[in-house]
């Protein structure tokens, strides 16, 4: 327990608690919601804070607190799914590219360069436009848009390790290609990828909310923060809290992910360095735009 706490403190307690809170709420959502998040009550629409509805109700009389809680679940599940898919596909492409090298590497990386030069949301929107809106199409679109950055990252780590003596000696010893790739190269790439993913999760959560805000992501009966916000916009004047609450929830979650990414990037720093060196490293990472 104390080891866990030490790790958490090194990463940063605020980040760990924020993300831990959202994960807990998301995981237990169906059992802790005070009301059914989809049940409507038109007689009680746009209500203010009350004991019955702690955070009020929306334009259809749905309980805002329950919808916020379910929204956390929707967002976290979607973020985790996309990161998992993008990590597998991108990691595989990148590792292969770095391992094989030569023409394959060149060709794959040019496509990756293109994917990185166009903002991911534009790529995702185009893919959704082709396949039509919907939850799984959104996941597919985001995966396609997110693969290039994971491919680039894992290629960089693999290309840096593949010519090191311990890999070359494996080759001399007669280890098979899959063995070298999956037992020795992939694990190295994985730690870099995981750090990147934790910071990236925030951007992904924002993109999911934006797509849903535009009506092209998560579809109605499911509760999602971006969608809650767009639903409430026409009633901005009479009940601004319906706009502010989901926006705030999303902002806090993204702050949590950003802090977590920053903390993990620092955590990977060489051991036993003082607060001053840690701060210097933070400034360095900041300047290079890594956090």
């Amino acid at each position, binding site marked *: 327990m104390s080891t866990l706490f030490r790790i958490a403190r090194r990463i940063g307690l605020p980040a760990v608690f924020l993300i831990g809170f959202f994960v807990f709420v998301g995981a237990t959502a169906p059992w802790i919601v005070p009301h059914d998040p989809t049940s409507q009550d038109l007689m009680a629409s746009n209500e203010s804070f009350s004991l019955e509805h702690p955070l009020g109700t929306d334009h259809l009389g749905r309980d805002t607190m329950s919808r916020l809680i379910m929204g956390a679940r929707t967002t976290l599940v979607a973020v985790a799914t996309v990161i998992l898919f993008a990590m597998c596909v991108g990691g595989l492409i990148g590792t292969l590219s770095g391992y094989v090298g030569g023409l394959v590497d060149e060709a794959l990386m*040019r*496509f990756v*360069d*293109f994917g990185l*030069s*166009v*903002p991911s*949301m*534009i*790529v995702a*929107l*185009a*893919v*959704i*436009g*082709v*396949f*039509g*809106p919907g939850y799984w199409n959104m996941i597919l679109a985001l995966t396609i848009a997110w693969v290039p950055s994971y491919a680039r990252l894992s290629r960089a780590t693999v290309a840096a390790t593949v010519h090191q003596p311990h890999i070359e000696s494996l080759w001399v010893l007669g280890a098979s290609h899959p063995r070298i790739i999956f037992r020795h190269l992939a694990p190295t790439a994985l730690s870099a990828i995981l750090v990147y993913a934790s910071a990236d999760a*925030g951007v992904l959560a*924002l993109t999911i*909310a*934006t797509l849903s*805000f*535009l*009506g*092209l992501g998560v579809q109605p009966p499911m509760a999602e923060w*971006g969608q809650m*916000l*767009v639903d409430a*916009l026409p009633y*901005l*004047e009479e009940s*601004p809290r319906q*706009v*502010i609450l989901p*926006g705030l929830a*999303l*902002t*806090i979650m*993204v*702050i949590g992910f*950003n802090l977590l990414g920053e903390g993990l990037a620092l955590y990977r720093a060489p051991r036993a360095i003082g607060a001053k060196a840690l701060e210097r490293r933070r*400034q360095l990472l*900041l*300047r290079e*735009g890594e956090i």
Partner: protein
Amino acid sequence: MLKLVYKRFIGAMMLIVIASVFCFLLIAAFPGNVALVIAEQRSATVSIEIVHQVEEEYGLKDPILVRYGRWLGDTLRGDLGRSLRTGEPVGPALLRRAAPTFVLILAGATVALTIGLGFSLLGALWPGGMVDRGVRALALVGASMPKFFIAALLVYAFGVLLKVLPTYGFDGPSSWILPALAIGIVPGALISRVTRVALESAMSRPYVTTALAKGMSRGRILVRDAVPNVLPVVVNAFGIHFAFMVQAAIVIEPIFAWPGVASYFVEAARFRDYQVLQSSLLLFSMFFILVNFVVDLIVLTIDPKQRRPRSA
């Protein structure tokens, strides 16, 4: 130097070719039923005959390379096809909508650069002061806020509570203020954060200590010695955030009913208008590739260090 520019140029051209392949493949090779969608949009009752007719008309049965060649040829000649939804030619529609988007991005970039440069200079003049801490907080919180939330808050503050600014439409400079703020504040805070860090390291150099010892004022050293040294950082950060601002336009334009390219793109995605999607995706991609290229060139010009070959 010229050789480097030449190399970057070839790289950018190659990316554009790949972009065209991607745009073509996305629309042409992925969904098996382009003809069906077109037929559905054309008449209420879809029969096999209509689908075949559409296939015939658009040449959808030809080999894929032939179709790519034909599409590329048409595009190069400026014929971007017709919108499947409205039947309007895509090229002129995109041109007409380019101006509002240009205004939005330009206004947003002005806001971002003003905030970015102004506040980082103020922060460097009084390190740890109010401005310094305020901008740092704004950068952290702002970067984590969804763009549509910022826009909604601005609309609420200036449109609903104060009732001083128009909250939608594209008529006259007063309607530009809110969208420009919505798109520019956060990039501004982020640029200022990066610039501030760079300024700080420039201000801790020995030559600054010497200048201070000689009695020069902090402000003068900052402007004369530190700023030229951090310019590459600013240009780079601006380049990155410029791309993000165009991306933000995708959500800002629909909110403010802005008749620009980005809202055209969103409409196309909503109605699965392949023709418009394909052309505007290609346009966006070319734009971003060119922006990257130009930023590279500017950095090459103002930062002599970058001109040296990397291996040396």
